């Protein structure tokens, strides 16, 4: 029902090893008496007690019997002496009693580590909270102390467990171990299923509340974490969970904090982090295909852009070439015309000096060239033209070279 043994086992071990080194130091609340009293808050003066005991020990050893002083009654009774039990003197039994009482008193010491606080109960009733350092409580059965870690953070893993993961293990929250699908799969607001892991960091804020208000606080925190996350995810559509992790975290933490305060759990939620937010395994490939599709779409666009980048500069080059060619044509045409015009002007100037002769010369030269090269038949009488239809023109053509040669001879 209670788990207080988890907390009280530690201080006993510490109290056994701790106080021997502190013999000379003043204890927090010195008291002159060496007798143990059941009153709370009061601590006997250890130093004085020790001195008293030493003196008594010396006295006893001097006056009483020697021999096996360490035995606790298993020695054989020698039978003669009347004033002691099992053959040991009164002084011996006083010594044994004193020693036991001393050990009992010393068992009240305990050390609270810097990250801890000790909650002291007197007969089960809460009496005080002790801070770090050496402390004293009345030994059993009067007072008990439960030590709680307050400054260190506890990490709660929901939806997964790292191999060493436990409630109080400070495992690296980023490393993801075994998946726990029953915790990690949940229903979103638009009736999709999502798979998410998260961690909750918490620390004890009020040890008294933490110990006394709620049974099994760790399980309560786990239940709360799960229900808070499911509530928040249930309010949001699936895309929100993928894209707005920060908001989900904040909302879930708020829900948890509110309920923790209502229960009086005595803890503080220091952080809530989503570790993995994934579609469930069953539909993962479809979700991955969406990402692949995005890449494909980009690829197609890039290829098209590449095509555009390829053809447009070429077209610009072609256009430039076309224009340059036209420019060249224009320039050439103008220059040629200019040249021809100049030539004509020069010819005309020369011709103007002797028009008749020049005209005749040019005419004759031209005719010479024409008749030299062409087939020429001289027809002196226009009436003879009527024979023309009967001439075998191709044949004439074949004999053209000879005819030309004849004409040439005649012409020259």
């Amino acid at each position, binding site marked *: 029902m209670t788990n207080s043994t988890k907390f009280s086992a530690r201080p006993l071990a510490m109290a056994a090893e701790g106080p021997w080194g502190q013999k000379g130091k003043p204890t927090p609340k010195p008291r002159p008496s060496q007798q143990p009293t059941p009153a709370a808050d009061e601590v006997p003066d250890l130093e004085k007690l020790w001195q008293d005991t030493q003196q008594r020990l010396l006295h006893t050893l001097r006056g009483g019997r020697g021999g096996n002083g360490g035995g606790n009654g298993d020695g054989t009774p020698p039978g003669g002496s009347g004033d002691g039990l099992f053959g040991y003197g009164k002084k011996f039994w006083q010594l044994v009693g004193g020693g036991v009482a001393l050990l009992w008193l010393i068992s009240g010491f305990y050390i609270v580590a810097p990250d801890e606080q000790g909650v002291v109960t007197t*007969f*089960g*009733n809460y009496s005080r909270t002790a801070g770090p350092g050496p402390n004293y409580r009345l030994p059993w059965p009067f007072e008990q102390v439960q030590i709680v870690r307050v400054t260190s953070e506890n990490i709660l893993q929901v939806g997964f467990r790292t191999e060493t993961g436990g409630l109080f293990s400070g495992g690296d929250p980023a490393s993801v171990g075994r998946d726990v699908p*029953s915790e990690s799969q*949940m*229903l*979103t*607001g638009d009736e999709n299923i999502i798979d998410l892991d998260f961690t909750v960091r918490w620390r004890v804020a009020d040890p008294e509340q933490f110990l*006394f*208000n709620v*049974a*099994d606080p760790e*399980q*309560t925190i786990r*239940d709360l974490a799960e229900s808070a996350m*499911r509530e928040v995810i*249930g309010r949001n559509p699936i895309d929100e969970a993928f894209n707005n992790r920060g908001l989900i975290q904040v909302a879930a933490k708020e829900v948890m904090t509110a309920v923790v305060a*209502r*229960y009086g759990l005595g803890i503080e939620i220091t952080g809530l982090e989503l570790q993995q937010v994934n*579609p469930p395994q*069953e*539909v993962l490939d*479809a979700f991955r*295909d*969406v990402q*692949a*599709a*995005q890449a494909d*779409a980009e*690829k*197609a*666009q890039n290829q*098209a*852009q590449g095509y*555009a980048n390829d*053809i447009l500069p070429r*077209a610009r080059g072609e*256009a430039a070439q*076309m*224009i340059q060619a*036209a420019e060249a*044509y*224009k320039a050439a*045409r*103008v220059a040629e*015309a200019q040249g021809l*015009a100049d030539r004509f002007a020069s010819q*005309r100037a020369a011709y103007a000096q002797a*028009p008749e002769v020049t005209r005749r010369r040019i005419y004759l030269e*031209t005719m010479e060239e024409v*008749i030299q090269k*062409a*087939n*020429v*038949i*001289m*027809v002196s009488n226009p009436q003879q*033209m009527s024979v023309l239809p009967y001439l075998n023109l191709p044949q*004439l*053509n074949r004999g053209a070279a000879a005819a030309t040669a004849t004409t040439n001879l005649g012409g020259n």
Partner: protein
Amino acid sequence: MTPRLMFSLFAGVAALIVLLNSVFIVRETNQAIVVSLGKIDRVIAEAGIHFRVPFFQQVLVIDRRILASSAEPEEVLTKDKKRIVVDSFTRWRVLDAKKFYEAVRSESNARARLNSIVDSLLRSQIANVTLEDLSTAKRDEVMTAILAQANKEAAPLGMSVVDVRIKRTDLPEANAQAVFNRMRTEREKEAKEIRAKGDEEAQKIRANADKERTILLAEARKQSETLRGQGDAEATKVFARAHSQDPAFYGFMRSMEAYRASLANPEKLILVDPSVEFLRPLRGSTN
């Protein structure tokens, strides 16, 4: 050992037994009921050391903390006839130890009673809302109603319900498969659309590039034709200016040039009247 010593030893042991039986400790986490011969004598709410009549009174310890209780996950039907598996947990505490002891006696009994209360409340309340409402707007409303009703029903049992929370609302396995199928098809649809849009975009880019190229080349052609025309015009102007100075000479020269170009060819057959100027000296010599 003398009889006197024996007696005092016996008396001491007896006194110790009586003392231990009359003293009891109530821890901070607990409360206690003192029962005298089967009848409740008093309830102790304060932690600390307390006394009772030895042997006649018994002490029953009851937890004072907030306690956990959770039923098995249950399949329930929503208003829109959707089956969901609801896993809830309840946090409660013993408010009235006397009533609690009389009504349920033990914590395990109390849990069983509470679970059946919460279970039936969940069923009845969830049957009033659709799954969508349960996930979103009406969730708080439903939970508040369940909590209030649970408290009302638990009060006679001496219990106070601190909280009822839904830990999980999952779909049953068969429905989950249907949801997975829907999710898958939704994503497939999305993927197809993305790919098609990518192709659309790509085609637009290509078409645009083709258009630009065509325009670019046509513009260039236009410009080059204009340039050529300008060149031709310039040339014509130059020729005209030169030839207009002596059109007759130009006509003569151009004719000569044309004869040379067109007639001075062995393929051509020319029938010549010997009276043409070129042959006049020839005729004159024969005459």
